[in-house]
């Protein structure tokens, strides 16, 4: 009997380890992409490139290109937020705790402060991030 019990314990441990490994891998990959988009956000939303708009500066000063420029600025922040929240969610899973609302709001705030240079980028980010949160919530539920 004891022998049998021991085998069962070993099996469950060997099953748990790869799962943790996978979650950790996901944490690292998501964090890496979040870092990449944070750096991109620094260039698009934080530096002097912001003023002229990288697209307008090198392509054409037209309304369509200006819209594309704003879209890029917003997308970079939203993608950074998305990867960060995925990474954080997985990280929390490793620690065995759920992601708290205040942590989500903290990340939301960190994303919004990146829009310091533009009201337009701020407004669209303010709209886009709750949509992402809602989408992630729906996925979680399903």
């Amino acid at each position, binding site marked *: 009997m004891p022998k049998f019990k021991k085998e069962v314990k070993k099996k469950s441990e060997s099953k748990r380890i790869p799962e943790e*490994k996978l979650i950790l891998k996901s*944490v690292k990959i998501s*964090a890496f992409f979040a870092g990449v988009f*944070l750096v991109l956000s620094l260039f698009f939303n934080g530096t002097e490139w912001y003023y002229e708009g990288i697209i307008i500066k090198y392509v054409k*000063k037209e309304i369509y290109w200006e819209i594309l420029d704003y879209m890029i600025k917003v997308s970079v922040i939203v993608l950074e937020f998305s990867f960060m929240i995925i990474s954080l969610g997985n990280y929390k899973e490793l620690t065995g705790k759920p992601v708290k609302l205040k942590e989500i709001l903290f990340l939301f705030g*960190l994303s919004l402060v990146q829009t*310091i240079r533009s009201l337009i980028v701020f407004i669209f980010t303010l709209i886009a991030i709750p949509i992402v949160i809602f989408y992630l919530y729906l996925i979680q539920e399903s």
Partner: protein
Amino acid sequence: MIFTANFLINNSHAVIENIKPDYGVAPEIDGDIDRSDKEWLNASKENINLISSNPTDKGIPIEIWVMQNNSDLYISIQFELEIHKTQEFIGILISDSEATSNESFIDAKILQFYNLGNIGERYEYLDYYLLNDEFFRDQELHGEAAAKLDGNKIVYEFKIPVNNSDDSQDAFLDFGEKYAFKIIYGETPDYKNGIKKKNIVLIEIEYKKKKKENIWILVHNILCIIIFCGLGGLFALYIYKIIVIKKKIRRVRE
């Protein structure tokens, strides 16, 4: 249908392109757009059609670039033709206001080519004033123009003084005002009857850009540095936490 509509729009006088030029570094007026030197970088760029009075004529699609600084307005006109005639000119007629009637145009800056594409090719920059649609040579030449033919593509560059002309034979372009500019194309140097194709654009001469208060720029930049440094710091802390949990998992496994 869309194509037809587009064709009709391009070929009608009803739609007048309104251009608000940005301030930029003065380009060298030599008929050459030096991209390595970022010439015309801030120019507002529009595509229009120079149209003929002959309805069967498709006209010439041109690209018009407009830029300004505190002293001059810069206009570049670029287009391709299958065959450029040995004589060719591009002129810019300037109205005294937004009005586009023939009588409203009082000034003309013209670049006339001779022997274009042949030996002895040369061009001449001409400054005219207009009275009742008749061209008269200015006593003093103001502005500057140059052009260059490269293959089938030709680039014209014009420099027109802004807010500093005391010459009654020149249009006075004032800041904050909108003026009609008629782009004319022709071949022989006959500046009323030789005009073959034309179109009008409205250009608003922008006020001198007020430089933002230095202190505000400084505060803004410092805030940006603090924010992004803070974000970088938090991200580094998060990476550290990942490393710690990775070690913990390894320890548990062992």
